[in-house]
């Protein structure tokens, strides 16, 4: 019986502590909200199309800007393709080849000697 009472006491104590901690968190949140209130939201402006308000010149300018931006993005994504090929084989290839050849020669020598 003693063990049962002891178990129940510990369970109740644990539950009590958990809820007490949660209560403290809620209290802290409420306090923080009061201390740092949210800035009032700016009144939403109605969405209007820039193009619909723009004059013909503005439309042309916008089109040119869009085309330029598109071209620029193409240039960015296109830059560099094939440059590594134009540069020729790199050190990795040369070193690996040299190592492979010397290892081969070493093996051949060992074979000859044996």
């Amino acid at each position, binding site marked *: 019986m003693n063990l049962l009472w002891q178990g129940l006491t510990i369970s109740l104590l644990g539950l009590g502590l958990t809820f007490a901690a949660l209560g403290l968190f809620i209290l802290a949140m409420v306090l923080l909200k009061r201390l740092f209130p949210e800035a009032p939201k700016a009144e939403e402006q109605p969405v209007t199309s820039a193009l619909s308000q723009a004059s013909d010149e503005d439309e042309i300018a916008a089109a040119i800007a869009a085309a330029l931006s598109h071209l620029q993005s193409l240039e960015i994504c*296109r830059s560099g*393709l*094939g*440059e*590594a*090929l*134009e540069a*020729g*084989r*790199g*050190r*990795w*290839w040369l070193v*690996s*080849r040299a190592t*492979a*050849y010397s290892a081969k020669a070493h*093996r051949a020598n060992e074979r000859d000697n044996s």
Partner: protein
Amino acid sequence: MTEAGVSRRVPPQPSEQGDGHASLITELQEQRKRIRAGGGPARIEVQHAKGKLTARERLSRLLDEGSFQEIDAYITHRHSDFGMDQERYAGDSVVTGFGKIGGRRVCMYAQDFTVLGGSFSEVQGQKVAKVIDLALDAGVPVIGLNDSVGARIQEGVYSLAAYSELFWRNTQASGVIPQISVMLGPCAGGSVYSPGLTDFVIMTKGSSHMFITGPEVIKTVTREEVDLETLGGAMTHGAVSGVSHFVADDEVAALELTRKLLGYLPSNSAEPPPAVEPTDDPWRMDADLNTIVPVDPGEAYDMKAVIQKVFDLGSFLEVHEHFAQNAIVGLARLHGQVVGVIAQQPLTLAGVIDIDASDKMARFIRFCDAFNIPLVTIVDSPGFMPGVAQEHGGIIRHGAKIVYAYSEATVPKLAVITRKAYGGAYIVMSSKYIRTDLVYAWPTAEIAVMGAEGAINILYGKELKQHPDNAEARRAQLVNEFREKFSKPYRAAASGHVDDVLIPAETRPRLIAALELLRDKQATRPPRKHGNIPL
């Protein structure tokens, strides 16, 4: 004359030298003149009458102007049987030396038909052996211009031994320096094995013939009657036997082709292949590629058109153009870099892989790997050719060569599946797990164990037989379901068997980018004496 008193192009005349030396120089010049005359004006006339050039004329056409340096021009044979003591020519029946093609060093030998029919003598063997040794030491390609009646009978075993020396050297040089044989006349008997051992054989229509035994011997032994051209002409070896990799219309075209071919080859196995300044936009995306593969899987299309649109414009040099046309192999450029292209041709036998196509592809793959040429494979094959003749002919052994060649290749390997990649054809044609670095597929790719109809017959054959009344409708439904599952590449991509699915037009930039990544690729192989390819 230059400041040093030495003319840049023409040696000074004897009169300009000291008196004591004049006669020596004159004698040397006389000797040179005699050597240049080969077998004499009458024989040169006969050679020209046949529409053929002499050995020296061929060399001057092939090599950069003024670059040829002759060696062993004074050597003569030592035999006297059968009146050979009366038939001694300085330099004997071959001209050997070195020069340049497109500024690149090459070693050369040209058989001189005007001297004893260009017959292969002990001395010719020694001269050719020396020039191959030089090429091997210098790490430069060796090119042979062949025009010979064959072994010099009067020299007996000495001539045969000289052949052995040549074949041994051809084998030693294989995979170390490129070897090209240009056939400009007859080549009969055992001598055919030298070109047979080299990397590329170029034959000339009408004037070049290759065979082990001639029409007369064949008639005697097997009673078959065959003419020279049908037996061993350029088109026979170019289209039927596959001995010849290229067929040229005439000698000049053959020599021009040799120059062109050399432009794709490195000088030796330690060097990368020669790159050129890129002339084509790496980002060129041909919209025609998006619609080039018909939606109907039974409809054919021209794979060569795909190749032309993907690789640098005008750069594709097809090898074995007339042989096993269901497969395509050749050298091309991607952003100026040399690549080996292997593909199927759906226009011929639906791109099926047969014995000849296997041999053609496997040999080409091994050549590219030996000389550091990256491989780009374009796959559209319904599988291996069925049939008793193929099975009895050893399609298993021959087909295994392809998978062996791809598996042992350590150069960058890229693959693009344009449509069918069924069964064995999928596996052997540069699939992911035989270590292809990057495998791409077009949205039209179908990767499956077999075609939809065949698969449904096997999987649902019994069920379809049990309900014959609505068998056709059910079959159509099942075929459609199968196609829906396997006629798109996304299932293969989802499991990593395909690295990416491409819009066909973007194949070119994607291949260039992949090639760029793999520029310095190094793959190791376990040490061994050599592998055992199923020959």
